[in-house]
């Protein structure tokens, strides 16, 4: 028991902060065109969702964002300095797979009911129609928030770097039916906690 108490968060950080920041900066610069494409795609997707209420587009977008995050960031770049990064990538792929299942299942429900507004959300305090706008705000404002917090704007790019992507994925979960939310919330929540703890240690 005493052994476990002797561990601190720093013991789990395998790299120095400057190496981490350099990795983020180099990675986001090298994937600039992809980042711009994804940001545009996300803006268009949520504008489309706001207009048409076709919420299946949200799940589709999240599948793309998580697959890119897992394959590009965790597997190809973060894994070069973090032995455990591949497991984080697998978590992203697992979440993408769950979203595919969700789409498949709910699409069958849509076909049988001819109703594409299949996300049964029951929010009492939030105007459901404004959720796409919230997501749009996250996508557009994240880079500016990063700069405001004295980071480089790269760290705020949705779909490329973890924290803004996972925040968007979590907000998007409000589009899913209540039952599916329980299934689809844990993985992005856990990933976001890990990323925030990493940030905490890197900044300390």
């Amino acid at each position, binding site marked *: 028991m005493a*052994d476990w108490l002797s561990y601190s968060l720093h013991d789990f950080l395998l*790299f120095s902060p400057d190496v981490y920041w350099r*990795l983020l900066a180099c990675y986001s610069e090298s994937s600039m065109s992809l980042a711009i494409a994804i940001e545009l795609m996300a803006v268009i997707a949520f504008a489309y969702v706001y207009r048409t209420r076709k919420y299946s587009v949200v799940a589709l977008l999240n599948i793309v964002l998580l697959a890119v995050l897992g394959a590009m960031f965790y597997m190809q770049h973060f894994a*070069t*300095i973090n*032995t455990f990064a591949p497991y984080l990538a697998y978590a992203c792929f697992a979440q993408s797979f769950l979203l595919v299942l969700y789409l498949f299942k709910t699409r069958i429900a849509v076909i049988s009911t001819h109703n594409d507004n299949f996300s049964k959300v029951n929010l009492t305090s939030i105007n459901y129609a404004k959720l796409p706008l919230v997501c749009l705000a996250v996508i557009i404002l994240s880079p500016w928030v990063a700069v405001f917090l004295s980071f480089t704007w790269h760290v705020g790019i949705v779909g490329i770097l973890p924290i803004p992507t996972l925040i968007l994925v979590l907000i998007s979960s409000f589009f899913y039916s209540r039952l599916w939310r329980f299934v689809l919330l844990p993985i992005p929540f856990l990933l976001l906690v890990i990323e925030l703890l990493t940030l905490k240690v890197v900044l300390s």
Partner: protein
Amino acid sequence: MSVDQNRRHLLKLASAMGLAICSGHHSLFATPLPSSATKIIPSSNESLFPIGMGTWITFNVGNDMQLREQRLQVVDKFFELGGQMIDSSPMYGSSEDVVGYCLSQLASKGLSTKEEIRKKLNNRGKLFAATKTWTRSSDSGQQQFIDSQRLWRQQRFDLLQVHNLVAWQRHLPMLQELKQQKLIRYLGVTTSHGRRHSELIKIMKTQAIDFIQLTYNIDDREAEHDILPLAQERGIAVIANRPLQGGRLMDKFQQEPLPVWSKEIGCNNWAQFFLRFIISHPAITSAIPATSQVNHMIENMGAINRVPLPNNAQREQMVRYLAAL
């Protein structure tokens, strides 16, 4: 003295100074260091330069070529100043790969660490490659060793250690086998942060090992009570990791003045103060500070100089001085 003798004396002085300047070593490398500047590995009587180099965090730089080149400068300086032991582990991310990169780059520049280079005037250090096995199964341990060979660009290692005592019962027989195959020369076990000392003692008493590695420094002297005396009794070499407490000792004390008697004990800076305390313990074979900066490497390696290592009274004086700050 005649004019000729004066001239001869002056010429000798000038050439010695020139050699010292050219070698870049502030401890006048032109003449050999005293024998007390090396430590002996008990199981073989092999001598070893007591200041090695750790690679935890400092060498985990991934594929960043600029950072790799910086580490190359650090390793080059390490060998130039007589360094030998480089310690790494599969747990340290890309550190093994970066070490292998540095070694291969030095070899390609003709700056080999192999025996023939010791003939050079500056007595460049001969590599003592130390890595670890860090996995729960013995099959994965075999694969990890193969991976280490590939990453280090080395077929043979001087020392292979069971990292953090993970599955040591499974791994020690494998290490014995590798030793018989002459793929490794020594085997050992490691722990750190004062963890699992009772299990370490059990291993030291019951297993045939050549090395242990544990945390020992002026701020963490727990090992002095039983482990270090046991290591001396059993003829086991000891590597001290975290000699600067992960940099915390430097952060805490480097703004404080060194004691007025620091030069008497061979210390020009705080890094040398902390390192000389460690290696002055008779049970300690090597300390492995980690750094990513060339100037820090020079400071660390300066802990080995012509001044005799602190004796027991001086060691206690060092502890008292620190406690009073």
